[in-house]
């Protein structure tokens, strides 16, 4: 099974020309779901998330040969996915010629008719509350609340101190609670 291969073996196979394609196929199979859900929680819309995920793996294909293994492969992938998601939102903002909160509102409106949202009303409200948060707080909240990633690992992924991440999460929780009370 593809998931059984270790990251170091996978990287070794990728560096060999004859096994490169096979190794990359295994890598995509191994990490596609985790990367997709990380992107989807930031982007919300499935079609947009699909585009971003494809771009993430194209970047991985191009740069994996230069990966120095200073961090784990998953941390590296997670960082690329987060950066690509933020870049996508920035581009969307630039194309709309409106402030970012309008992009958030536009995503929030899309959520109303999203065929691929299977949650209940209160979950939808929570997603709308999350969309009101600034970028960094939103990412930190998603990572902590839904994926329960440890602050130390998050610190490595987002290149931010543990204290700053804790503060971000604390503020995010408070803002979401206020949103849920008032709406």
């Amino acid at each position, binding site marked *: 099974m593809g998931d059984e291969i270790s990251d170091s073996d996978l990287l070794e196979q990728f560096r060999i020309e004859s096994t490169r394609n096979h190794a990359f196929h295994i890598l995509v199979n191994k990490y596609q779901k985790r990367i997709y*859900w990380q992107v989807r929680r930031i982007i919300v819309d499935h079609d947009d998330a699909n585009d971003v995920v494809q771009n993430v793996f194209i970047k991985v294909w191009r740069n994996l040969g230069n990966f120095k293994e200073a961090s784990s492969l998953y941390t590296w992938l997670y960082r690329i996915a987060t950066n690509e998601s933020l870049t996508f939102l920035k581009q969307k903002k630039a194309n709309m010629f409106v402030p970012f909160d309008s992009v958030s509102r536009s995503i929030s409106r899309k959520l109303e008719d999203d065929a691929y949202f299977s949650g209940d009303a209160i979950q939808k409200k929570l997603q709308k509350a999350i969309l009101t948060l600034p970028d960094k707080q939103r990412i930190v909240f998603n990572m902590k609340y839904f994926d329960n990633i440890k602050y130390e690992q998050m610190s490595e992924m987002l290149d931010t101190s543990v204290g700053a991440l804790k503060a971000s999460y604390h503020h995010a929780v408070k803002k979401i609670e206020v949103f849920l009370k008032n709406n």
Partner: protein
Amino acid sequence: MSKISDILQDDESLEKENPLLHSISKENPFSVPVNYFDSLPSEIIEKCREKVEPKTWGNGILTNILGYKWRLLTTMGCLAVICYLSIQLNNRPVSYEAIAKNIPDSLIVEHFDKNITDINVSTLEDFQEPESISSPVKSSSDSTNNTDQAIIAYLINHNISVSDIENEP
């Protein structure tokens, strides 16, 4: 303002302090199309191959020509040429004859009557056509006399009487 001790409290107690958030299920509320994750790897690998394949000459040129930047540049270039030509046409000098053509004679005469009081007639001769100066037009009475004399001479030379001419049908 939040205290540092509040911020550093453990997440479980933080969530319990916020009962509305705590009551919401942490289950993933999103879904994906059927078989999405089965087809995603092959789609990604296909895209990676497309990016790696070198562009052919024709394909590259066509992509550039049809590319957004080129279309924008071409449009701007065309606009610049149109602007330049219209400015050039508007600034082209117009001859006095062309201007005078559009002014009625009555207005010109009226203008001279009002504004020009001391015309020296001799200066106007300079504006006469050279041909008219060298061969002045003969008066109508002179030409009539010349014609009559020629007719009379012709009639005498050919012994034609006036009555013959009058009897002709």
